[in-house]
Structure formats: structure tokens, C-alpha cells
């Protein structure tokens, strides 16, 4: 089975993020990493391939040239090859433009199953999978916490506000997995060494037949108008435990008559 996993290179979670006041975009110049929510998507695709005993796991991403670093991490986990859409024109793409570009790559690749992670660690959106599914005209199951793929069908158990749903759809389909679905593996040394030799293709939006005014800011339908400070909030106390933290909590509770 051919499985495509859409992944994103995001600013490193351990580095303080900032929005560039000029472009009003997230500053992506610092250290980047594979979106943590995408590692579960890669893991799930690898597990399906391993269960089947054959197949191909293709990584699909859009981002700057440096996104290849993140793609190599996912290749080191065990994915077979990577396609990165990278050119200056795609920078600043919103959901409308990004879903269009990813759908163009996926149309070209024709996978049986497309897997997304739960959300972008930078945008906090959990929307791309359903948008891409609509462009591909395929069924979608999101927030999947348990996935079964068999007999040309995909079955996902997922949590909603009201309990657990079990949803089934025929392949080809799109799923977005929850971050609770699995524990992603760490790349082995052998995997890391082998990743460099795996096929890594960089294409432009134009190569995919997507016109320049349909990508980037020109192809986007949302805009950032202004950046503001958050509303003021009360001062929080933060202490390091030096052995007396439990005492301090108990005192804090007693002062507020909660004990």
C-alpha cells in the first residue's frame, strides 16, 4: 500500500517563538524541527507498512529548504522517500493555499492513504487534513486514536466531546491521527545513516501546475491585520522545588482557606 504522510517543519518548541513585526508572519529563521504532532503520523504509517509486509511511505511537505532537515528525521524513522514543495512563492500560505499545494503533490503521487498529524505545533490548527481531503474528493476521519486498515477500508476510533466514535471509510482516504495513537520510535543510528541516501525531491509550486497567484500570500484568503499584547493577568507565583514545595503549597492553600 502506498501511504503519504504530510509533515511540517516548525520552529523548535524549546526556543521562544516570535512573530516578525514587519511581515506579521511567524519568524521561522531560528532552529526548526519536525512538528512533534507529525511524528505520530509517521509512526502510524510505518506500522501499517510493517504489518502489511510491503508498501511505501512517502513524506510530503511544504516549507523552506531547511525543512529537508525535518524530512530527514522522518526518513531516519523509516519512511522511504520525501517530496518537499519549496519556493519563495509558497511562503505565507494560509489554509486555502497550503491545502491546494499539498493536494497537488498528493494528486501526483496517488497514495491509497494520506495521514496527517493532529495539528501544527506552531499554528495550533487541526484543520489541514479535512481541507486536503475535500480537494482530493476523498473521505476523511480526523482525531483518530486507533486505526485499522484492512480489506480496502480504514476504520478509525476517535474521541469527540461526547465519547468515542468509530468511523469507517473506503480507501483511498485521508486520516488525521491524534497524538495519543502511538509512541513514535526514535531513529536508529542505522536509520540516520541511511536517511541521507533516500530519495529527497524538491519541487516548486509551478512544477506541480499550481499557478503563482494561487499560492503564498496572493493565494491566501486570510490576513494578519495587527499584533497586540495579551490582556494583563495577575502575577503567578512559580517556585522551584528545593524540598519545601509541598509545605509552600499547603501554606498557600491554608492562606486561601482551601485547607
Amino acid at each position: 500500500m502506498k501511504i503519504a504522510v504530510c509533515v511540517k517543519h516548525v520552529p523548535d518548541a524549546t526556543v521562544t517563538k516570535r512573530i516578525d513585526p514587519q511581515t506579521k508572519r511567524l519568524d521561522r529563521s531560528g532552529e526548526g524541527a519536525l512538528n512533534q504532532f507529525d511524528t505520530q503520523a509517521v509512526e502510524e504509517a510505518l506500522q501499517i507498512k510493517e504489518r502489511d509486509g510491503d508498501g511505501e511511505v512517502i513524506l510530503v511537505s511544504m516549507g523552506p529548504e531547511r525543512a529537508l532537515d525535518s524530512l530527514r528525521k522522518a526518513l531516519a524513522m523509516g519512511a522511504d522517500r520525501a517530496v518537499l514543495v519549496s519556493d519563495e512563492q509558497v511562503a505565507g500560505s494560509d489554509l486555502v493555499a497550503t491545502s491546494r499545494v499539498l493536494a497537488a503533490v498528493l494528486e501526483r503521487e496517488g497514495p491509497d492513504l494520506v495521514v496527517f498529524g493532529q495539528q501544527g505545533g506552531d499554528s495550533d490548527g487541526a484543520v489541514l487534513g479535512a481541507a486536503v481531503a475535500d480537494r482530493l474528493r476523498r473521505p476523511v476521519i480526523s482525531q483518530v486514536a486507533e486505526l485499522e486498515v484492512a480489506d480496502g477500508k480504514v476504520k478509525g476510533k476517535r474521541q469527540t466531546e461526547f465519547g468515542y466514535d468509530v468511523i469507517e471509510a473506503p480507501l483511498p482516504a485521508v486520516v488525521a491521527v491524534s497524538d495519543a495513537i502511538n509512541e513514535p520510535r526514535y531513529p536508529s543510528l542505522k536509520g540516520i545513516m541511511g536517511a541521507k541516501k533516500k530519495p529527497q525531491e524538491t519541487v516548486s509550486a509551478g512544477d506541480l501546475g499550481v499557478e503563482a497567484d494561487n499560492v503564498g500570500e496572493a493565494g491566501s484568503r486570510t490576513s494578519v491585520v495587527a499584533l497586540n499584547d495579551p490582556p494583563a493577568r495577575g502575577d503567578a507565583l512559580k517556585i522551584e522545588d528545593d524540598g519545601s514545595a509541598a509545605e509552600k503549597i499547603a501554606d498557600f492553600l491554608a492562606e486561601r482557606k482551601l485547607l
Partner: protein
Amino acid sequence: MIAVFLEHHEGELQKGALGVLGKAAQLGDDVAGVVLGSGVKDLAAQAGRFGAARVFVADDPALEAPLPQPRVDALAHLVREEGVDTVLFAASVLSADVAAGLAARLDAGLNWDLVDLVKDNGNLVGKRPALEDTVYVDVGWTGEPRLAMFRPGTFDPTETGGEAELSDLSPQFEDFSTQATMLEQAHAESEGPSIEDADVIVAGGRGLGSPENFSLVEALAKALGGAVAATRAVVDAGWYPYATQVGQTGKTVSPKLYIACGISGAIQHKVGMQGSGVVIAINKDPNAPIFEFADLGVVGDLNEVVPKLTQLVEQRK
């Protein structure tokens, strides 16, 4: 005209969606509710009490299960046929998929995680907290239709009375939209104690390290006379029952005291407990977002701190 997607479950319009409806009515434009389902006409009429002058209803067996894709078809039909320029959603598992699919279908801008929507010189501007709520971004749309999704629990419904005029929608469904089927719906994994009425909640997350460590949380909750809650991550991992889950999916709680043990404080969790009185967080990661909204944060090992605290509570009470 602004249309508000009114999600419903077991014969009830959802509070979050009705809150958004009330917000939309304040903006002064024509506001319509949209109710999609099977056998939902009576339900649609109720929306009039919460600010909808008009309610569009698509009543079709294809809309019986709460699956997103047939709803995208229905809303796309509504936007194209009825002069709707803005569609608003209260965030949920279902509405995120509906809004995203609709954005792609109509090439319409979608702004999500909004906490407010205002009119600025006639333009709609959304307020969106970003980067762990450290910056508030004003977001806009470069054209119509505009799609917006609000953070759960942002607006409370206001009952204004009034009756809505019902208008029937007869959408055509795309072949791919009806391929997914719901085999089981809203199945609760197991019953547990209700946490919604508890004055004190001690909650555990992934940082507990193992399901066995929930015993630390349980002991502290017992000492304080409170209930035990859990995050989505540990519930999905099978460590604790669904009935105890706090967050966007799960329960919304507002106890007098909320003690978060090994919880990072992702926004999905925050929205379920931000109404709590006093919040205490214990986490070994000093950068955990929970410290941003805890009244008292302790950076430390919960295996050390929690049992000691339990002992102190038992001694002092």
C-alpha cells in the same frame, strides 16, 4: 448575512454554538442559524430564542450521523444560494472538520481559535491569541466568504426570546461526502464519578509517567475531599476513564481548587478548566504552558511533591 453553524447532540443545540449565535446577533447584521441533521425541524425552531431571526434547516438522512463531509456540501450550498458572506463556528471535533472542508471547497479564508470578533470600519476583525497566548493577533479576510471558528466556551448563550423563520435547504451530496460511515457513536468507555460538581479537583497528565502513578493523584484528591480528573492524552492512552477527562473534548469544570499534576497545559486542556478558582500546577518542565495560568506553579518532581503534600494535608485538616 452571517450564518452560524449550530451543532447539536441528542436533541440539544450546543451551548458553544448558541453563544456564537448571540455574538453574531450583536454585530448588527442579518444573522441566521444553520441546523443540519435528520428529524431536526423542532430543534431548529429553538434557535430563535437565542438570537436567530432565521434558521436554515437541511433535514436529510445523509445528515443523521455527525460526520463532516455532507455538512460541507450543505453549507457550500447555503453560501452559494442564499447570499451568506460569513459562516461562524464554535470549535469542536466536528466543526473543525466542517469549517476546514468548507474553506477548501469555497476557497474561503478560515481563521480559527478566535476569542472575539469585532467590526472595525465596517470590516470584520477576529482576535486570536497565539504562541501560547503571549500575543494577540488581529486577523482579517481578504475576501468573502469569511469563515471563523471560536475557541470553545468563548461566549455564553443569551436567551432573548423570539421566533425564527425556518427556511429549508435541499443540498446535493457529493459522492465522496457520503462514503464515511459511523459504526458507533458517542460511546462512553466506562462510567466514573462526576467531576463537574466537585469543589476540588486533582488532575493527572502524561507527566505522571505511568498509569500506576495515578495512585498519587487519587491519594491527594482523597485527602482534600476532591475528585480525580485526567487529560485527554492519558485517557486516550487508557490510563484513566473517559468520564474524568477535562478539556475541549471532555468535561468543562470550574472547581474552587484545581491541582494539575504532570499536565503541560495545552490549550485543549486549558479551555476545560480555565473557570477554576485557584490553579496549582506541579510539573518538572519549567517551560510548560500551564505555569502561564497557574496561580502557584511548582517546578519539581511530582513523585516527591505530591505524596508530601498529601501527608501535610492529612496532618493539617
